[in-house]
């Protein structure tokens, strides 16, 4: 690979934690542009197996029937919001082990504590950087599958 290239890829892949690049990821956000940004960043990290949902109500049935390995969700959404989705996932016998990363503009300390108590695996505040997203994903999977 060419290190002179400005491609984001090199920035992101220089420290390698073992991650299954084929894992199936569900991206939940009510704004299609934000879903697209996250999808692109994940693709730059090598994760191409992604699906999208625009709120908890559409996401939950997908999770229940779709063999997903990882959930990335916003908080503030119409219908079922992200924290409700997180609780629903943790309450579901088959889904409760799934790592959940929250990527959200919600920045109140109370809210972050609430998400932690509800069992979130990682929390990224918007606006965020590609590096922050990568770090959090790696940290989550280091914890989930210690080498």
């Amino acid at each position, binding site marked *: 690979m060419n290190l002179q290239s400005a*491609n984001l*890829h090199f920035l992101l892949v220089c420290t390698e934690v073992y991650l299954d690049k084929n894992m199936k990821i569900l991206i939940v956000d009510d704004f299609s*542009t934000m879903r697209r*940004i996250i999808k692109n960043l994940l693709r730059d990290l090598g994760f191409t197996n992604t699906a999208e949902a625009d709120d908890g109500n559409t996401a939950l049935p997908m999770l229940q029937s779709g063999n997903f390995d990882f959930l990335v969700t916003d908080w503030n959404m119409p219908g079922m*919001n992200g924290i409700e989705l997180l609780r629903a996932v943790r309450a579901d016998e088959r889904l409760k082990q799934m790592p959940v990363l929250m990527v959200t503009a919600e920045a109140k300390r109370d*809210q*972050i504590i609430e998400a932690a108590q509800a069992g979130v695996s990682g929390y990224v*505040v918007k606006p965020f950087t590609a590096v922050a997203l990568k770090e959090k994903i790696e940290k989550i999977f280091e914890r989930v599958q210690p080498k």
Partner: protein
Amino acid sequence: MALSKDPGQATAQQFEHSLKEHALQLVDYLESGNFSEAVLVVHAINQARDRGLYHEVGQLTRALHNAIVNFQIDTSHALGDRGEASRISDASDRLDYVVQLTDRAANRTMDLVESSAPMVADIGQEAAALSAEWARLQRREMAAEEFRDLSRRIGAFLTRTEQSASTVSTQLNDIMIAQDYQDLTGQVIKRVTTLVHDVEESLVSLVRMAGTVDRIAGIEHGEEGQAKKAPEKGEGPQMHADTREDVVSGQDEVDDLLSSLGF
């Protein structure tokens, strides 16, 4: 369009003044045992109170009416007349337009980036491969046959790079132009901000008038429970995060908070 500063003040003062005078009279009559006169005074007090009240309610109604007319709040459904699009519904249309414009610009930018990125990556990869070959040539490790092949590749690469550079340059320009939404949305948002400010001013005046009515009528409102926001509900981006204690101002603070919780 703002209503006068303290419209009901004079009426209320007048009423209180006459109330004081009448009260003294009333005490006099009662002490001297003149009950029929006393009843008349009570009646007069009532009348003064009603007059003030009618006056204030009338003013309040007029002010409300003016506010509605000024903002053309969409009452056509409620009142059954056909009104033009109100300033309020116009404002929400405008904000919808902002959402549309920003959405379009974001997608346009991402289209262009997605189209440019593979070209840049491709140039980088091919340049790296050619560099390795070039180094071999300089170390004189390359046969003549291989050199002919390399020189053909370099020629093709230069042609391709020139084309790609021109395409990427055009797309970078287009990305810049796609940011023109900032100007348009900025103007729209400023207009809506002005409207919100006007509405707020008029509402404050109305509340002040209603306060005078309450004062004359002697109405007291209990503290109605202020709507408490459940943290459950998302609140969206926080303003002035750097000066607030209850809000984190970036990812580092989130990480600190979570690690203090044992994450």
